[in-house]
């Protein structure tokens, strides 16, 4: 029996009259890469925002290891082991790559009112930040100012910052967005390494990537869950093909 790490029950979020997420009940299993697919506007990013705590839900509950975390603020979810990366690169452009990861690594310090000792002297924080930088493949760019990185490197840094908080559950919102082929494979490789020790919830448009790493896939349409299952089952599903895969093939070409 696989262990459920995160669960949503009738989770919903409306923006004015728009039901972006309309009653989604999903169970995410520990140690499984669970991808969420769906056409644009299906509510995938809103779902991630609800799970991470960036947005409060309009209705429904979120359970983490059986505990109700629906109203828990973002930083307390990070303390529980949540980590997230953003679809739109969300970094500290004027800081070095190491300093970008530093802030995440520092979140694991017990307490918060550290006023006197210089930050640089906290060896465990440095270790965590450097480890995260090495994991995301930017250790050779530690001192580079983040705003001067290439787009692909910024996407890597985005993941590195998340890893610096040493999360257990990773919420990844289109980690491959806007990446070249070679960079994409580097990140896919990283995600494959991460899945050994983490639970990944992944939104991604790149079908090849999704089917190569996901253990479970949920397809969303119009804010609701259309189907959830193994990659093979999703590939074979007629409903999914109609709703999404069918016209997305053409759309992908267009976007690239």
């Amino acid at each position, binding site marked *: 029996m696989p262990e459920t790490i995160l669960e949503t029950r009738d989770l919903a979020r409306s923006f004015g009259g728009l039901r972006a997420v309309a009653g989604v009940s999903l169970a995410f299993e520990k140690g499984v890469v669970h991808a969420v697919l769906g056409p644009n506007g299906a509510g995938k990013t809103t779902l991630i925002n609800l799970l991470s705590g960036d947005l409060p839900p309009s209705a429904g509950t979120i359970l983490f290891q059986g505990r109700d975390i629906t109203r828990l*603020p973002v930083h307390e979810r990070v303390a529980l082991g949540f980590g997230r990366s953003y679809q739109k690169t969300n970094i500290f452009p004027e800081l070095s790559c190491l300093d970008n990861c530093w802030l995440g690594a520092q979140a694991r310090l017990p307490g918060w009112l550290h006023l006197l000792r210089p930050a640089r002297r906290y060896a465990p924080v440095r270790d965590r930040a450097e480890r995260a930088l090495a994991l995301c493949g930017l250790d050779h760019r530690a001192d580079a100012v983040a705003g001067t990185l290439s787009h692909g490197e910024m996407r890597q840094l985005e993941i590195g910052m998340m890893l610096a908080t040493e999360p257990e559950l990773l919420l990844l919102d289109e980690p491959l967005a806007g990446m070249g082929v070679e960079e994409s494979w580097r990140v896919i490789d990283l995600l494959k390494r991460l899945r050994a020790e983490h639970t990944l919830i992944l939104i991604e448009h790149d079908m090849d990537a999704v089917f190569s790493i996901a253990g479970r896939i949920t397809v969303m349409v119009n804010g609701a869950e259309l189907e959830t299952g193994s990659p093979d089952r999703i590939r074979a599903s007629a409903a999914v093909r109609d709703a999404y895969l069918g016209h997305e093939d053409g759309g992908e070409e267009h976007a690239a």
Partner: protein
Amino acid sequence: MASRAPVLPLLFALIAVGIALFPLVGDSFYIRLVAKIMVLAILAMSLDLLVGYTGLISLGHAAFSGTAGYVAAALINKAGITDLAPLLAASLAASGAAALLVGWISVRTSGIYFIMITLALGQMLFFFFHDVAFWGGADGVNLTARPVLAVGEATLLDLSVRMEVYYTALACLVAVYLLLSTILSAPFGQVLRGIRINEARTRALGHDVQRYKLACFVLSGLVAGLAGFLEVARGGFISPAHVNWHESAMALIVVILGGMGTLVGPVVGAFALVLLEDWVADLTDHWKLVIGLFVIAVVLFLPDGLVGPLKTGKCRLLPRLRQRVKEPSRESVRDA
């Protein structure tokens, strides 16, 4: 952290030594003026902690210095207390409590709303001191005595002596500088910097940004309280003008003039503004116009303030970098 050149701490050290030696050559008018500048510099430094380091633009900062000043004045005049330690403790407690209250409400907002709410709450304190007769009314009050630090029979410090006020202010200036630079390079300061650059991301990395903002606000209010205490001890006078938003705006101009996000900037800004005022007011009746033009010129040509050119060259690149990150353009995708 290491990106800032040690030029700025060096500049501060030079200024501090200069201030320490100045009484050897300066006349009594200028000694009094420099003491006033130092107090303004401490107030501006405390404001810069909010504005330059955390990105919280407060327009009600004089409320905290003014509250501390009024509490000290009331204790001296009404209760006859002249002992420095309890006076200072009560003043700081009052400014800290005021900052906790104002901060608790205002850190829930950001941007223009933060500016407006600090302004509004600051003005409420202004009217409190202005209208409640106990505090002495619109004309303000003169101190009947000055704070004294004594142990047994021996008087260690007497703030009615001009030179003792001068060196007390200098000691406070240096102490505040050291305290704030320590805090800013500690993990606490790293989070403040994160909040300034990208608040949402700092939160997403696991920091309770609200709590940090409030702590920063209270810390800033306490340092402002020290400035308010020194101001009343120095001038022997407090009036609602010390609490008014003009005073807050003046502190903000000093910060912008000298250089936001540096600790030496507010000190340089305080010297520039007060000395320029002193000089121009002798030359023309329209001195406020000249000051205004000077501030505009600095903002236009030295966007990082008077100490801006001393900072490392890469700060100049920042506006361009920010644009690039906001829109990871198609070109940069191809670059990669």
